[in-house]
C-alpha cells in the first residue's frame, strides 16, 4: 500500500515537473518558432478547415526549405501545433487558452471561419498574443479595437460590393433594382451590410430582402418573388448550401435575372456539382490563381496553384492561398522586428506593407487588410460543358469579359 502511494506521488511529481517545463520550453525552442492553431479538422467546417491547414503547411515547408526566418543573425524554422476545434466556437476558445497557457505558444495562426475567429480573438487579446488570421472576414472582428489581431483578407462587407458597382456601371450609372437573400449568420449579414452601403451610394433600390435560415435547403419562395418582381441583380449569400440551392432552383424554376452574384462558389465546387446550370454566376473571391501578384517564395498564383496541386492533389481554393499568405506575413514581421518580443512583433505586424502571391498586405488600425480588393469571377462554360471560373472584375485583372445580361433560359 505504502509503496503504491510513493510511486503515485513520484509519478505526479514528475508529471508536474514535465508540465511546467513544457511552459518554459515552448514559443521559440532551439531553432524553432512554434506557432499555435486551432483548426476545424472535424465537424461542419472540416473541409474548409483542411484547406486552411494545407495552406499553412505548404507555407511552413516552403519558408523552412528556403532558408527559414532570420532573427538576430540566427536562422529559425517554423513549426505549428494544431488542435482540432471540432468546428465548435467554445472548443476553439478553450484550445486557444490551452495553446497559450499550457503549451506556451506566443504566436497564433487563425482558425477557419469568422465565428471561430470571433471566439478566439478575445483570448489572444487577453494574453497579448499576436494572431495572424486568414479566414475570418466578418466586419465585427475589426471594429472591436483588437490590437493583436491581423487578417490578411478583405472584410466581408466588401465581398459583393464590386458586383453592385459593376451592375450600376453597366446600367449607365443609374441605380439598379436589387433582390437579395442572405443567411442569418455573422458573415452573410456582413456581406448584406456591404450591399446596403453600396446600394445607398449608387442610388440603387432593394426590392426583395430575404433572410435564409441556417437549415436552408429550399428558397423557392424567394425565387418566385424574383420572377414576379424582375430585379436587375440577384444577390445570394448562404455559404456553400446557399450557393448550391440557389443554382439548383434557379435552373429548375427557369428564373431569368440579368445578374446573379454569390459567395462561396469556390468552396461549393459550383461548376463541378452543377455543370452548365451554374454558367454566368458571378462569384466573390479573395483570390484567384490568375492574379499577377508576386513574391519570392511562391512566385505567383499560377505557380502556387501548380505546386499545391502537386502536393495535395487538388486545385487550391482561396482559403488555402490566404492561409499560406498568413505565414509569409509572420516571417516578414519577425525579421523586421528582429526579436521574439510579442509587443515588438505586434508593432512590426501593424507596420506590414508587402506584396505576396496572394495580394498586397497592409493592415488598417482595426486589423483588416485594406490593400487587396476582392475579385469577381464568372462561371463560363464551353460548348462541351466544361466550365471554368474567369476573373471579370476589377478590370485590371480581368481575364475575360463579363457576360451581361445573363441570357434568358429560353435562349440557352
Amino acid at each position, binding site marked *: 500500500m505504502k509503496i503504491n502511494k510513493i510511486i503515485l506521488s513520484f509519478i505526479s511529481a514528475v508529471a508536474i515537473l514535465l508540465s511546467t517545463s513544457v511552459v518554459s520550453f515552448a514559443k521559440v525552442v532551439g531553432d524553432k518558432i512554434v506557432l499555435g492553431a486551432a483548426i476545424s479538422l*472535424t*465537424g*461542419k*467546417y*472540416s*473541409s*474548409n478547415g483542411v484547406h486552411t491547414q494545407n495552406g499553412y503547411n505548404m507555407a511552413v515547408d516552403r519558408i523552412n526549405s528556403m532558408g527559414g526566418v532570420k532573427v538576430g543573425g540566427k536562422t529559425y524554422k517554423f513549426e505549428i501545433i494544431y488542435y482540432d476545434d471540432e*468546428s465548435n466556437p467554445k472548443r476553439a476558445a478553450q484550445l486557444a487558452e490551452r495553446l497559450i497557457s499550457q503549451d506556451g505558444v506566443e504566436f497564433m495562426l487563425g482558425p477557419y471561419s469568422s465565428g471561430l475567429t470571433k471566439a478566439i480573438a478575445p483570448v489572444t487579446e487577453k494574453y497579448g498574443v499576436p494572431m495572424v488570421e486568414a479566414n475570418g472576414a466578418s466586419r465585427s472582428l475589426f471594429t472591436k479595437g483588437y490590437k493583436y489581431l491581423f487578417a490578411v483578407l478583405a472584410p466581408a462587407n466588401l465581398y459583393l460590393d464590386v458586383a453592385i458597382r459593376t451592375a450600376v456601371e453597366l446600367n449607365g450609372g443609374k441605380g439598379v433594382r436589387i433582390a437579395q*437573400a442572405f443567411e*442569418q449568420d455573422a458573415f452573410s449579414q456582413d456581406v448584406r451590410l456591404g450591399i446596403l452601403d453600396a446600394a445607398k451610394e449608387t442610388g440603387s433600390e432593394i426590392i426583395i430582402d*430575404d*433572410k*435564409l*435560415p441556417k*437549415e*436552408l*435547403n*429550399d*428558397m*423557392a*419562395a*424567394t425565387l*418566385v*418573388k424574383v*420572377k*414576379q418582381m424582375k430585379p436587375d441583380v440577384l444577390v445570394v449569400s448562404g*455559404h*456553400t*448550401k446557399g450557393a*448550391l*440551392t440557389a443554382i*439548383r*432552383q434557379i435552373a*429548375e*424554376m*427557369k428564373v431569368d435575372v440579368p445578374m446573379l452574384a454569390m459567395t462561396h462558389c469556390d468552396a*461549393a*465546387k459550383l461548376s463541378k*456539382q*452543377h*455543370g452548365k446550370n451554374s454558367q454566368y454566376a458571378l462569384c466573390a473571391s479573395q483570390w484567384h490563381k490568375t492574379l499577377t501578384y508576386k513574391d519570392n517564395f511562391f512566385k505567383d498564383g499560377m505557380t502556387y496553384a501548380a505546386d499545391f496541386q502537386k502536393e495535395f492533389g487538388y486545385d487550391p481554393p482561396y482559403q488555402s492561398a490566404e492561409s499560406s499568405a498568413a505565414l509569409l506575413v509572420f516571417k516578414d514581421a519577425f525579421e523586421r522586428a528582429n526579436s521574439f518580443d510579442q509587443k515588438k512583433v505586434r508593432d512590426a505586424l501593424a507596420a506590414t506593407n508587402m506584396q505576396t502571391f496572394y495580394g498586397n498586405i497592409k493592415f488598417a488600425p482595426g486589423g483588416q487588410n485594406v490593400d487587396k480588393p476582392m475579385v469577381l469571377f464568372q462561371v463560363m462554360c464551353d460548348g462541351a460543358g466544361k466550365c471554368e471560373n474567369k476573373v471579370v472584375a476589377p478590370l485590371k485583372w480581368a481575364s475575360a469579359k463579363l457576360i451581361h445580361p445573363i441570357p434568358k433560359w429560353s435562349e440557352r
Partner: protein
Amino acid sequence: MDFMVFQYPMITIQACLDGVLLGVLFALIAYGMALQWGVMNIINIAQGDLVILGGYIAYFMYLYGIHPAWGVIASPIIMYFVGVGIYKLVINKVVDRDLFISILATFGISILFMQLMNFAFGADVVLANSGYGTTFLFDSNVVLPNSKIFSAFVSIVFAICLVIYMKKSKLGRAIRATAQNARAAKILGVDTEKVYAATFGINAALCGVAGALISITFTIHPYMGLPYTIRSFMIVIVAGLGNLPGVAMSGMGLGVFEEFADYLLGTEFRIGAVFLLLVLILVYRRFKLSRKREYLK
C-alpha cells in the same frame, strides 16, 4: 408581413402546389415514424439522420454515374439492413423501457450518425442532379420542377405499397397485431422480436426512399437531419398513430403551411413557424384532453 402571396393568385397556386408536393414527402417520413411509434412505442430522434444517410446512398450512386433516381430502389434496401442492425445493437435493449430511455438512446444514435457521416462523407453540402426538366402551368406563371413531382409520385407509390403490404402479408398482419397488443400477439405465436426488427427496418427503408428523393430535389449535409425529425414528429402528433390518411393529410397540410409561412413571415421563420405550430398543437391537445378528463370525472 408580406401579403404578396395573396395578392397574386398565381403565387397562391404556386405556394399550394409546392407545399403539397413537399408535404407528401414529409408524410412518407412521418409514416415510418408513426409505424414504429405505434408498434414499439419508440420516438426515433434519429429519423432525420436516417433520411440523410439514405440521401448519401443516392448521392454516391450519382457520383459513380448511376442515375440517382435508382436510389429510390437501392437506398431502401440498404437502409432496411441498417435499420435492422440498429435494432439488434441498441433498440432491442430499450424497446420495453419507458419512452424517456428510448428517446435518449435514439438521440445518442442521432449524434453518432451525424458524426460518422461527417467523418465518412465530409462536411460539404452535396446534391444529386436528376436532369429532370421543369413543368410550366398557367402560361408559365406557375413552375414546378419535375424532380419535385417525381418525388411526390414516388412517395405516394411507396405509401400505397406499404398499406397493401400491411393489410395482405403475413408480416404486415403480425406487425398490426403487435401494435394492438404485444403480449396477446406473443401468446398467439407471433415472434415479436422479429416483428420489432422488421418494423425498425421498414421505417429505415422509408427514410432511405425519402432521403434519396431529398438528394434529388434539395441538398443533403450530415447535420441537416433534425428538421426532418421535427416535421415528422409533428405530423404524427397531429394525425395520431396508425392513421395513414391522417398522416398524408397532415403532411400535406404542413407542407402548405410552411410555404405560406415562408411567403408571409419570410424564409428565416420557415422552420421557426413549424416549431411554433408544434407548441400550439401540443397546448391545444392538452387543453382538449383536460376537458375530456373533467367530463369523465
